[in-house]
């Protein structure tokens, strides 16, 4: 039986909210990830989009075991990651790497490029000390940094170059899966394009599997084969990138797509936006039933009671909405 590279089944990550200074009593639970099922095939780029607080970063952090899941299973290459000893986890970790949003915060300012890139390789005994300079140099070239910068510190680099270092660090351990959490949102447009191109080339050449997390649907659509849309801890739509972008089915995805400003004045003036009412609700106190129903124009009484399951609508395209028949009668916004 063939396994997907990563299989997530009904994953939940909840955080207790405590009140009081020392011996706080629990006053609530933030259900950051609340029942996510997701499969990643080898070599696939999956885009994960959603607004702030929807749990997309927590999902990534749970996959790499930076957070402990409350419930559910994560299978990586067929092996469960839950409850592993630190020793075993340490052997698996190199294969799962993360790239963070802010390259100003994710690099140690007191370490040179060499130190930053050499450490993981030494710690996991991938390279001998003698071969290190060559290995680090090769890694730098792979991400488009000149070897002569090897002794420089992070502050000597621009934001885009720092993100290249962060990507090189993730690649140092020859990972199978890369989780990139908003890798370009701290960068200017022209630099964004450079980093996206780099990720694209790398994923193609090295056969990397990647989960690209972003709030920017345009970025995700450009990179990913499939897109998952998250709202308040759950996936509400999952399907081929072009289908999710061009013919979104969930009312939330429709609003999200319609809110993206497009750099074309004629198209912008011709289109009619779906303006959602209000803000995304707090994950501390999510609405009952479908979490989107208070902002949804299609919602009826049943939506406030039942949590809609993620169901296959057409092959390969899943949507979690009880009122899909009503939604699909209205045309997709331009």
């Amino acid at each position, binding site marked *: 039986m063939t396994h997907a590279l990563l299989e997530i089944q009904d994953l939940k990550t909840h955080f207790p909210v405590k009140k009081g200074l020392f011996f706080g009593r629990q006053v609530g639970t933030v259900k950051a990830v609340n029942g996510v099922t997701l499969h990643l095939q080898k070599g696939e780029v999956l885009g994960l989009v959603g*607004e*702030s607080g929807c749990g997309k970063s927590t999902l990534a952090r749970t996959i790499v075991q930076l957070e402990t899941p409350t419930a559910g299973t994560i299978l990586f290459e067929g092996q469960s990651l839950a409850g592993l000893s630190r020793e075993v986890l340490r052997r698996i970790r190199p294969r799962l790497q993360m790239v963070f949003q802010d390259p100003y915060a994710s690099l140690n300012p007191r370490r040179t490029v060499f130190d930053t890139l050499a450490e993981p390789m030494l710690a996991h005994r991938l390279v001998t000390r003698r071969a290190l300079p060559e290995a680090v140099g090769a890694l730098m070239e792979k991400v488009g940094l000149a070897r002569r910068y090897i002794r420089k510190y992070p502050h000597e680099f*621009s934001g*885009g170059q720092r993100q290249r270092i962060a990507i090189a660090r993730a690649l140092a351990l020859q990972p199978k899966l890369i989780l990139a959490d908003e890798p370009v949102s701290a960068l*200017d*447009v*022209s630099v*964004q*394009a*450079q980093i*996206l*191109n780099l990720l*694209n080339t790398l994923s193609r050449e090295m056969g990397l599997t990647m989960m690209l997390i972003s*709030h*920017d*649907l*345009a*970025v995700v*659509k*450009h*990179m990913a084969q499939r897109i998952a849309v998250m709202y308040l801890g759950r996936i509400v739509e999952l399907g081929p*990138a*072009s289908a999710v972008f061009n013919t979104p089915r969930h009312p939330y995805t429709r*609003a*999200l797509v*319609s*809110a*993206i*400003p*497009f*750099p*074309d*004045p*004629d*198209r*912008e*003036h011709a289109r009619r*936006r779906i*303006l*959602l009412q*209000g*803000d*995304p609700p707090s994950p501390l106190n999510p609405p009952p039933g479908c979490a989107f129903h208070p902002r949804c124009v299609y919602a009826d009484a049943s939506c406030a009671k039942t949590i809609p399951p993620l169901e296959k609508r057409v092959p390969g395209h899943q949507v979690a909405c009880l009122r899909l028949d009503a939604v699909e009668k209205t045309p997709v916004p331009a």
Partner: protein
Amino acid sequence: MPLLDVQKLRTYFHTRNGTVRAVDGVSYVLEAGETLGIVGESGSGKSVSQYSLLGLIPTPPGRIESGCARFGGIDLLQSSQAELRRIRGKRISMIFQDPMTALNPFMTIGGQIIEPLRVHEGCSKSEARQRAVEALGQVGIQDAATRIRMYPHEFSGGMRQRVMVAMALITHPELLIADEPSTALDVTVQAQILDLIQERQQSLGMAVVLITHDLGVIAGTCGRVLVMYAGRIVESAETRKVFYSARHPYTQALLESMPSVHAQGDTLFTIPGMPPDLTHAIEGCPFAPRCREVRDACRTTPCVLREVEPGHATACLRVQAGEL
């Protein structure tokens, strides 16, 4: 007479590491009621060019080296702090990027909204309160009479930005400067705020300067655009012209590098190199080292913004010479 006429504005920051020429000779006019977009990457001087007008540049290290900014017969750059105080928040209002840091966490929402009315219009407390409730209602905050007693931390990001809009517009200004008003917000909330600013603009008839790095936001909201690079305006034209017939190679490159204009998986167009270090004087065109159309003359000939066709100006020497 235009509402605002800025000529040859230069704002430099004198730091230990040298003089940063943040805004270096910027001239433009703004007509009453129009929406002008200023687009550029971080460090291009788009915010400083606006903060300079309102005396919001920290001095030192900042200093306005030259220029004038005529606003209804007054030169803003020559005005005293007392004169500026009468204009700021009354005739010219501002909205900032991050509504959490722009609101005072120790004051109630109501207290902050009525402040401009009490200061500028000498309203009584009860009248000011009445108008504050109205203003909050106009920006789509329900139950305003209760909400007015709440503090900023009790509001979400989108609601706080609505409060900022209400506060900025309560004195019915002639000009609103919005500095990345939607950048810190989620896409669906961003759409709401931009929509709100446009709707309030139409009902009040004010002019808006919208500073943003997002060309998509410009496309949907602005009538005219200034493209800034390295402290200068490199292109200025009506929005449709900037998007459909950009003349400056930088503007063209910026448009081409946006992911949404590319087919999925295509290699995105990128601009090689980095913006110049503004502590060094730039002799020729600041974009020359990264430009695909560069000629030797571009590196040494000073360039100025010139009209190449009615209403469309560019600082590119080669376009001006008719070569591009």
